[in-house]
């Protein structure tokens, strides 16, 4: 009996020692391999789509094992995108896939990220139509009878299906800096389908600089308008919090993966006439 007890004890210890190196797979099994972020811009000469390979360290510069293609579903043509390593300021990096192939307006496209193990992710999207240049009104009437020069500006955008971004970047001389303000939430959709915006850029800049009570007197050298339009499919991103957007299923159009890729038309214009309005207002402020 003592021999048998000793044997059992030894077997017990050996059984546990066999597993001294615990194998451990930290990842949950999933057939999801990629997340894709970006947009096709019909006005741009180069298209970029960010492709993240899941289950690898965020920010690492190891190549993404994927073949990414862009297919014009109307014409049946397909191009393979080239990868490029992007390095960012805080030492992290990411991969984008790009092509200089022109992207046509009002056209359906399919982007496919193909992995060697057969787990693909794809997006089907439609690019927006081209639209006329927006009408920009400074509201400046130097010969008006008003005691002070008028301060309101307006912008009218016609034929756009959906506005997804509207920003004005002000290059200020006093203080010397650049200031970008978003106006998307102030745009009104009129019954005839026109988007219109009425605003006071001087007051907006003054408020943004913390001088809403009139204590700041900014000066302007130039302004640049950034306008993005898209199709009805484009989600209302401003309605979501960052926390909500971080949930991978909140907004995604990627089949077999996560992320979002849409079609946009980005238009940028200098709005030099605004500096005159600022000049008059600055005189008023100083006076």
């Amino acid at each position: 009996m003592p021999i048998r007890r000793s044997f059992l004890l030894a077997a017990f210890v050996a059984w546990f020692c066999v597993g001294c190196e615990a194998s451990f797979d930290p990842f949950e099994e999933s057939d999801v391999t990629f997340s894709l972020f970006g947009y096709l811009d019909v006005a741009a000469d180069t298209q970029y789509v960010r492709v993240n390979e899941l289950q690898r360290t965020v920010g690492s510069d190891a190549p993404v094992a994927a073949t990414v293609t862009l297919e014009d579903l109307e014409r049946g043509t397909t191009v393979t995108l080239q990868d490029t390593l992007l390095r960012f300021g805080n030492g992290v990096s990411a991969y984008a896939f790009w092509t200089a192939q022109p992207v046509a307006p009002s056209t359906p496209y399919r982007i496919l990220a193909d992995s060697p193990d057969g787990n693909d992710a794809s997006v089907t999207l439609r690019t927006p139509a081209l639209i006329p240049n927006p009408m920009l009104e400074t509201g400046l009437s130097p010969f008006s009878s008003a005691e002070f020069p008028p301060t309101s500006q307006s912008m009218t955008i016609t034929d756009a299906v959906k506005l997804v971004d509207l920003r004005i970047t002000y290059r200020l001389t006093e203080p010397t800096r650049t200031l970008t303000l978003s106006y998307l939430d102030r745009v009104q959709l009129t019954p005839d389908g026109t988007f219109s915006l009425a605003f006071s850029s001087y007051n907006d800049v003054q408020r943004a600089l913390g001088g809403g009570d009139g204590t700041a007197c900014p000066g302007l050298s130039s302004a640049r308008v950034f306008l993005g339009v898209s199709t009805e499919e484009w989600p209302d991103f401003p309605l979501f919090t960052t926390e909500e957007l971080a949930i991978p299923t909140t907004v995604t159009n990627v089949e077999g993966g996560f992320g979002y890729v849409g079609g946009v038309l980005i238009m940028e214009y200098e709005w030099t006439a605004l500096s005159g309005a600022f000049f008059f207002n600055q005189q008023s402020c100083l006076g």
Partner: protein
Amino acid sequence: MNGRGSLWKIFGLLVVLFALGLAAPVSAQPTRTPITTTVRGFVTDAESGQALPGATVGLFSLAAPDATPAQTVTDNDGIFLLGGRFSGRYTLQVSYVGYETAIDTLLLGSRDVVTLAVQLAPGQTLGEVQVEAEGGAAQVEAGRQSIRPQDLARIPTPDLSGDLASYLQALPSVVAVGDRGGGLYVRGGTPPQNLVLMDGAVVFQPFHIVGFFSAFPEDLVANTEFYAGGFGARYTGRLSSVLDVTMRDGNLNRVAAAGSVSPFLASVQAEGPLVPGRVSVIGSARASLIEQVGPALGQDLPLRFGDVFAKVTRADPQSGRCSLSGLYTFDEGAIDPQATDVRRDVFRWSNAAMSGRCVLLPRSVPFEFETQLGLSNVRNSVGDPDRPQRSSSATVVNAEAHLARVQPRLRLGGGLFTRLDFLNYELGGQFVGFRANEELLLASGGYIEAIWDPGYGLELHPGLSVTTYYGDYAFSLEPRFRFAWQPWGTDGPTQLNGAIGLYRQTVNGVSDERDAGSVFLAWLPNPVGDGQAEALHAMVGVQQKIGPFTLAVEGYAKRLDDLAVPIWSAIARFTTELTPADGSVYGLDARLEWQRGPFYTFVGYGLSQTEYTIFQAPLTGGPEGFQTYNPPHDRRHQLNALASFELSDFEASVRWQYGSGLPFTRPFGFDSFVPFFPLPDVTETFGIPRVLYREPFNGRLPAYHRLDVSVSRTFEVGPGDLSVQVGAINVYDRANLFYFDIFTVRRVDQLPLLPFLGLKYELGA
């Protein structure tokens, strides 16, 4: 009339009833029947003068030898109280393992109060009195057990002095999530929900950064009452458990000193009489060495810790003891020194605690009176010592008075307390909404409790505590109830026991449980919900003696409300919001103990399930709703096996521990997501790193197991004794995972095989 006024009236009524209960039997004695006599006293070691907690005291009638004797055990101060209508000649027998039994003959019936000073001489114990309070890991009664210094010595620890931290981790109720970090989880409760008392003063974070050690080494601890739950009305302000440590008094009669060194720490200790037989002092200082020794053992362990303790005691064998205790601890180190990000942060915490305490047996009244004044402070910080990124401190001043007396089959106790908490924190935005602040909380209250023996082997412990806050918190009324039943009498082999009680906690230590590598605790007034965090405990157990074996099995359940936990988030970031969580804990502890001669074995198994429920949107999308998950300390199975052998100058012990895997968040990937408003240039915007997972803590780490051994022997060398200890931690070099950093895909393991050699030299022991 408002609610608070009503409750005060109820409490006032309870106080009056309690006072009447104390006073009535004294003043209303029938003239022809024997008067109620209180036989009480102190039991001390005859050589050192130190109190002997847990000694068994029996009072046997010489006139009726077959009558059931009145029996009790001494408390942590070595005090016993026996009450009854005693008349005639009795023998008082006092016994304690390792001491000669003391027998005294008393003539009772003529005095209300008989006060005795019983000194036990070390030697062979006689077996006349059933020794119920000897302790041992299976001597558990509704979550409560007494832990003696010799229990601590049985656990292999890489130092010649055992430690309460190592011992507690051998119990089925206690979970440690790793071998560093300094946190113990008791029956699903978190470390800041444990009330740790050193001679009555709160010690906020007494467990050192290296998990084997605490501020309570075997050499300094006289006795510990550990409640894994269901604690009585005397203890308030914590939800989970109580560790009531009584520190050892210095030797009243002779000077002794010791010094020890091991790879983990070095210590010196001295004690002796200031006034022989009356006033003693004991002092100890310890400092870690593992940071210096680690590289020689192939380990980079930049961990530093230490503590200083001193206690002065004035003892009067007839009237009482007064003591002044002081403790300072410090801990510092990086939990994951190999990390390249914030997990490389250096954490620091220190405790300073002071307690002035008197236990008195007033000469003319049959009461035991205890008063205590405590002052305690804890400081936590992360980052540069001079300019920490986050810091938190808590200071508590408490003043307490307790009173107890005995009646036939009844012991009544009660007390009053006032507590002032001062909290100061600078959290650097870690917890949204709590950046920097100072808070002052003043609370006062009281409690009453009784131990009633209605016969039939039954013992009932009802209690009620009341706390009122001068501030935003509601009046708190917390009923408690414990019972024990020995259906075959007090000498029978079986005891059934149970407890139920309501517990509330106002000052909580909040940690970021998303990150196992972060041990920073922010002490805050309960930051979520409408009031205090709350717990309801219920447990029932059985203790059975079977020959040389003692088997104890206990089932328990807890309901938890308004705990503060971080919200789930897919975004990899340092800051988090706190949200209220409700929870439940269910479990079962089984303990089997065997002792014969020099051999001792113990096997403990713990089964536990902890669940938290919060109101939040699921991370895979869908509507907001209640989500349930297992927090990262939810260890489902835990097994500890311990064997020790002690003969003369030779001791050997071996312990094997097993713990099933702890929950961790198992992702299916991560990426950086790019927000689309405003429209980004994806070649210039990195985006926000995020973890892709369906729910938090949805995976389990691998199981943990480890074998530790130690052998020691003591030699006479010169005027003192030299003890030599050799042993090893993690004998079969198991790669136990501490935690997994999912952002860098890197595992952080616990200690590998670590052999050790320890030396200790004692003079005057």
